[in-house]
């Protein structure tokens, strides 16, 4: 362990390789991936990424990856966003489900991994319910054990891009006698199972980026996915779902490269708009926030490599990037002046940024976690 912020020769070679490929292939002007038409275009891009083995660089070769180290993953993300490449519509699968599959999936279930990376299966998440947002443990959607499978009733909501996906992973209550975190099971559900209805609805930025998913007496056969629909054991859902939140996943949810690229775009905008001294300071601070995020992440990566679990430190990560994203876009809107009324990438990005402090555990809950688990303050209140 030491400090050396230059690429190793291997990292430099990896960077050059990624950069060259991205320069030659990144599409420009894709419509938003949160519309039906745009989603299809993004899926094509995912197929192209996968074919060139850039879809999941940190995965094993046999699943389409390059066995990249975490450092190389950071390099890839930096180059990916610096090249102006599109958002990843496969991200709920590859960043949220995949780590859990790697840890808890049986060998057959792990065959889902390359299909997911290749965008053959498109996964959405089914955590939230109308009555269970921040308070995830109050889930009421039920899966009842029946002969050869599960009978599911209930409703999920806020399912990102659910209307365009093929599969859902989520938590369902399988033991109605248990309350809160107990009696939940992590299930894998093809969305074409009879009785499942998906209804897309509009997000603040105008895209149909959310869906409600209704389960109306759905029979989910045990073999609806290879290796079985239960991931990690009946009644073990909470533990399975949470196990990877404090691991790499906390780092990989939003990569620093994404914000660094956005902050450079902001400096371009500031130059184009001849920013006032007041706004130049805010641009500098947005860049500083992205830079701090990049360095903090590197710090955490070395911690992970040394075997320290980030645990509740992933809440620090989430607080920082989500607040940064809002501040960065607020600054962009001020730079745009009256043009901030237009419907464009910056104004949509601003509205999208406001979901950051809400989703994946509101920032109020993240601050509770930081205070209680990192500072040791007493619970409740």
């Amino acid at each position, binding site marked *: 362990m030491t400090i050396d912020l230059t690429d190793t020769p291997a990292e430099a070679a990896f960077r050059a390789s990624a950069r060259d490929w991205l320069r030659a292939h990144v599409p420009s002007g894709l419509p938003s991936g949160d519309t039906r038409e745009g989603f299809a275009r993004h899926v094509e891009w995912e197929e192209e990424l996968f074919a060139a083995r850039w879809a999941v660089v940190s995965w094993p070769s046999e699943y389409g990856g390059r066995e990249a180290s975490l450092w190389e993953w950071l390099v890839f993300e930096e180059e990916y966003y610096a090249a102006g490449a599109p958002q990843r519509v496969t991200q709920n699968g590859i960043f949220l489900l995949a780590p859990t599959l790697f840890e808890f999936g049986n060998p057959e279930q792990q065959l889902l991994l390359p299909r997911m990376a290749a965008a053959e299966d498109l996964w959405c998440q089914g955590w*939230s319910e109308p009555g269970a*947002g*921040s*308070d995830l443990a*109050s889930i009421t959607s039920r899966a009842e054990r029946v002969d050869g499978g599960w009978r599911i009733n209930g409703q999920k*909501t*806020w399912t990102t891009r659910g209307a365009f996906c093929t599969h859902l992973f989520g938590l369902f209550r399988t033991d109605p006698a248990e309350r809160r975190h107990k009696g939940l099971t992590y299930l894998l559900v093809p969305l074409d199972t009879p009785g499942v209805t998906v209804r897309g*609805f*509009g*997000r*603040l930025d*105008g895209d149909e980026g*959310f869906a409600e998913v209704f389960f109306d007496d759905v029979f989910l056969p045990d073999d609806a996915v290879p290796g079985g629909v239960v991931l990690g054991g009946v009644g073990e859902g909470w533990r399975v779902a949470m196990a990877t939140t404090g691991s790499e996943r906390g780092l990989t949810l939003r990569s620093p490269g994404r914000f660094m690229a956005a902050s450079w775009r902001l400096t371009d905008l500031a130059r184009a708009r001849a920013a*006032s001294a*007041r*706004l130049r300071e805010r641009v500098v601070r947005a860049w500083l926030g992205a830079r701090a995020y990049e360095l903090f992440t590197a710090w955490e990566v070395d911690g992970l490599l040394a075997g320290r679990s980030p645990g509740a430190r992933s809440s620090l990560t989430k607080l920082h990037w989500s607040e940064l994203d*809002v501040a960065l876009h*607020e600054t962009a*809107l*001020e730079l*745009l*002046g*009256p*043009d*901030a*009324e*237009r*419907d464009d990438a910056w*104004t949509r990005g601003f*509205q999208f940024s*406001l*979901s950051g*402090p*809400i*989703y994946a555990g*509101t*920032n*109020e809950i993240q*601050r509770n976690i930081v205070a209680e688990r990192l500072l040791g303050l007493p619970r409740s*209140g």
Partner: protein
Amino acid sequence: MRFALTDDQIALRDAVREVLADTCPPAAVREAWAGGPVDRVSVALVELGLPGMALPEKDGGLGLSDVDLVPVLTEVGYAAVPLPVAETAAVAVPLFAAAGVDINDALSGVGSAPGSALDRASYMQGPGGAWVAVRRAAGPVPWAGRASVVLDLTGSVAWMRPVGGAGVSTMDGSRAARVLDEAPGTVVTEDPELVALARDRADLATAAQLLGLGRRMLDLTVGYVRTRTQFGVPVGSFQAVKHHLADALLQLEFAEPVVYAAAWAVATGSVHRGRDVSAAAVLATDAARFVARQAIQCHGAIGYTVEYDLHLYAKRAWALAATCDLDAHLSRLARALELEEAP
């Protein structure tokens, strides 16, 4: 010193509030987003005399001052009325009157104005068609799709321009913005003082609406967090939520008197007019943006959807805030405090 609304001001505000609650519920704003008709609220506001409310009574107006307009425009903001009420009543009509322009002549000379047969008073009270869009900057003109004419205040000369042009997608779809066609206009006034006054009135009217929008967002949020439960208790019982919303109220409450003081400065031709209008613009803009942020955060995911009403008001607030040139206002304040030289 006296600093309170008169009984008349309160009565008019309450009347406007009642009419808007009836004719401009969230569903009406939503319909306007979809390009639907806005006749019901338009007719109701014309019947109340709002378009010409700043005209003297002898000219068919209500004889209201800039101060009187603030509570009315706050209600217009609260309801996110999908019409250029503020632009017409607080900016265009007073400028036309001061410039000696006959309003019917003005409106009939360009674009889709509804003919010149009506006299001024009856025109302003006619059923719709009485609305004027105001252009403050290059780019699409908000409300052009709902107005008879565009008052162009981008330069030192005020122009009247036709509303023709292509519709364009903006953050607040109910504002019916258009990219205007190239077409000749007519001069309203070449007096830079009158133009500057009209611009200050536009900023003041924006500030008043932002106060109302802030109230609306706060009301919606308070209503939501009192009933929505998480972890077995109302979301509004969490201290973090309480403090977010207390801070939101704090900003609105301290911006409001500053907006009234600015209106008084405009109405009385105070030497501090520019300073006071800028103070109002800065504080009302900051407050509305802050409230929007807290409102969305405290709602959680539902506040982030277009099926829920909050976004109608948040987007109007962001659209109006975008028209507020904070750099210019802060500079004007710095000059007024003798921190900067005039440019």
